[in-house]
């Protein structure tokens, strides 16, 4: 295999398609580019095609159309070269419950061409960094879910890949484990590793990603930095809950002077996009006060990626929750 010039993009995807028997197109013509050193968040609801895309890019599944280059290598024709370059931590941890962490390290290292000494040195460093040093001699079946995830990540990093695929890495983890993993991902990116991260959690994409691609039903519906995407929606939303339910219709009528208010789905209050942003907030408050409408709660929401998804698809992301 000859060396080739550094490609401009870490990942280049053109018209990628994956069709399954029965005509199901889990990936339906995706184009994307991921630059070296960035964290690219791939956000979408369950069944959107995220894991299928990752499976294709990591050479586990061939595409049925289009092409994908990872590190400059074609995933279909140059699979071995791709696999030498990447590390991956997929949805299922895929660990052998009867092996210890050390044994996984040696196995993975050998598969990647590392000597036993290199595997153990590098593995020891990773296990310690990820808080698994003391558990390394134990069989994996004694590990918690969070520990298994961390071991999976250590194995993905063992051979110092330049490109890391993380498929829903924090699903099922408690808050503490999730936060720790986020820090680890940031540290990797700061160290020059390109990260392709799939997630169904808005806050994860928001917190980590330099750029986000939003996928729905196999297609990329939006792409950009989180700030850019939210700026497309632009305007913050005001949520007002009257002190008494009977006041809601009056509140609704009043807010029509500022835009197009909508009743909240829970039947308690009203929400409205502020056309002129937070500058309009004071006017709204004065108007509500002047009309003698007592308000129990008044909140302002900056646009979220969920709002972006809603704007693009007409639906909310599953599992998203309102920010407080």
């Amino acid at each position, binding site marked *: 295999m000859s060396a080739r010039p550094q490609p401009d993009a870490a990942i280049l995807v053109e018209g990628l398609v994956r069709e399954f028997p029965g005509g199901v197109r889990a990936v339906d013509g995706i184009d994307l580019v991921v630059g070296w050193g960035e964290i690219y968040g791939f956000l979408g609801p369950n069944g959107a095609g995220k894991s299928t895309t990752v499976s294709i890019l990591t050479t586990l599944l*061939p595409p049925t159309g289009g092409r994908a280059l990872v590190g400059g290598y074609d995933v279909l024709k140059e699979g071995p070269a791709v*696999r030498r370059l990447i590390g991956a931590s997929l949805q*299922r941890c*895929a660990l052998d419950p009867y092996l210890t962490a050390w044994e996984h390290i040696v196995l993975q290292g*050998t598969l990647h061409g590392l000597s036993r000494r290199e595997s153990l040195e590098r593995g020891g460093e990773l296990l310690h960094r990820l808080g698994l040093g003391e558990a390394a001699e134990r069989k994996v079946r004694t590990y918690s879910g969070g520990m298994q995830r961390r071991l999976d990540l250590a194995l993905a990093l063992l051979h110092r890949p330049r490109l890391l695929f993380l498929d829903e890495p924090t699903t099922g983890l408690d808050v503490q484990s999730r936060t720790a993993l986020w820090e680890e991902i940031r540290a990797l990116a700061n160290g020059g590793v390109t990260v392709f991260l799939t997630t169904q959690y808005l806050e994860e994409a928001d917190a980590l990603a330099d750029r986000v691609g939003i996928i729905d039903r196999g297609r990329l519906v939006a792409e950009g930095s989180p700030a850019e995407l939210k700026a497309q929606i632009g305007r913050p939303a005001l949520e007002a809950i009257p002190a008494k339910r009977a006041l809601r219709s009056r509140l609704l009528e009043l807010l029509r002077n500022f835009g197009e208010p909508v009743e909240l789905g829970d039947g308690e209050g009203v929400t409205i996009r502020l056309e002129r942003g937070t500058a309009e907030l004071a006017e709204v408050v004065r108007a509500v006060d002047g009309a003698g409408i007592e308000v129990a709660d008044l909140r302002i929401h900056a646009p979220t990626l969920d709002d972006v998804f809603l704007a693009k698809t007409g639906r909310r992301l599953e599992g998203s929750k309102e920010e407080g």
Partner: protein
Amino acid sequence: MSGRWRETWQVAWAVGRRNVGSYLRRPELLLPSLVFPLIFFASFAGGLSALGHLPTFRFGAGYTTFEYGFIFCQTALSSGLFTAFSLASDLETGFARRLFLASANRQGIPLGYLLGALARAVLSIAATTAVALAAGMRVSGSPIQLAGLVALGLLLVALGFGWAAGIALRFRTVQAGPAMQTPVFLAVFLAPAYVPLHLLRGWIHAVATINPVTYYLAASRGLLIGHPQQLLAAFLLAAAGAAALWGWTAFNLRAAEAAG
């Protein structure tokens, strides 16, 4: 090319070592592989020993030696077969995905499991041989003939594994166990398992005459007692079979890759 082969062996060595380690540390895998050949040997050589007294039996070394030849071949084939069960289990649980992901050259993966199967066979056959010798098995083959017996055994391991691994890669579940096991079981028993070929009657005689296992049994029994029989046929059939089934495995490896 040398780089590619180096990678293949690197992967095979890692996978094989893990397979052997799992086999040795899991009693539910280790014990049956040691005990069942012994049980079969005891029940056939012990329970059917009266057959050796039939005037038409004509195997001078005794029924124990005669049956050992069968157990040797059966154990070799089964070692390959049951290692493929481990492959099926790893495919089903997702562990094989890790191997697929990390291996530059995936041909090394089934090769690694085959190495594990060979190790398993060595242990099983060694245990059974020790018991058979203690039970009075008479071995009069020369060292070269016994080395030939070992070589035949290794080919049979590859045969058993090649068939079952292809099934495992095609269906990727242990539920395919009967599909892996039944043809091997039928092949082994539709042969002179209990009595020599000339004592079989009816349809089973006709089937046994064209069954390759008949040649393996004749060769193994002949090599044991120093009167080689059907050697060329046995080795040619075993080698050709192993090569064909390796192709079958490679074909289904591509199917497994395509299915993701």
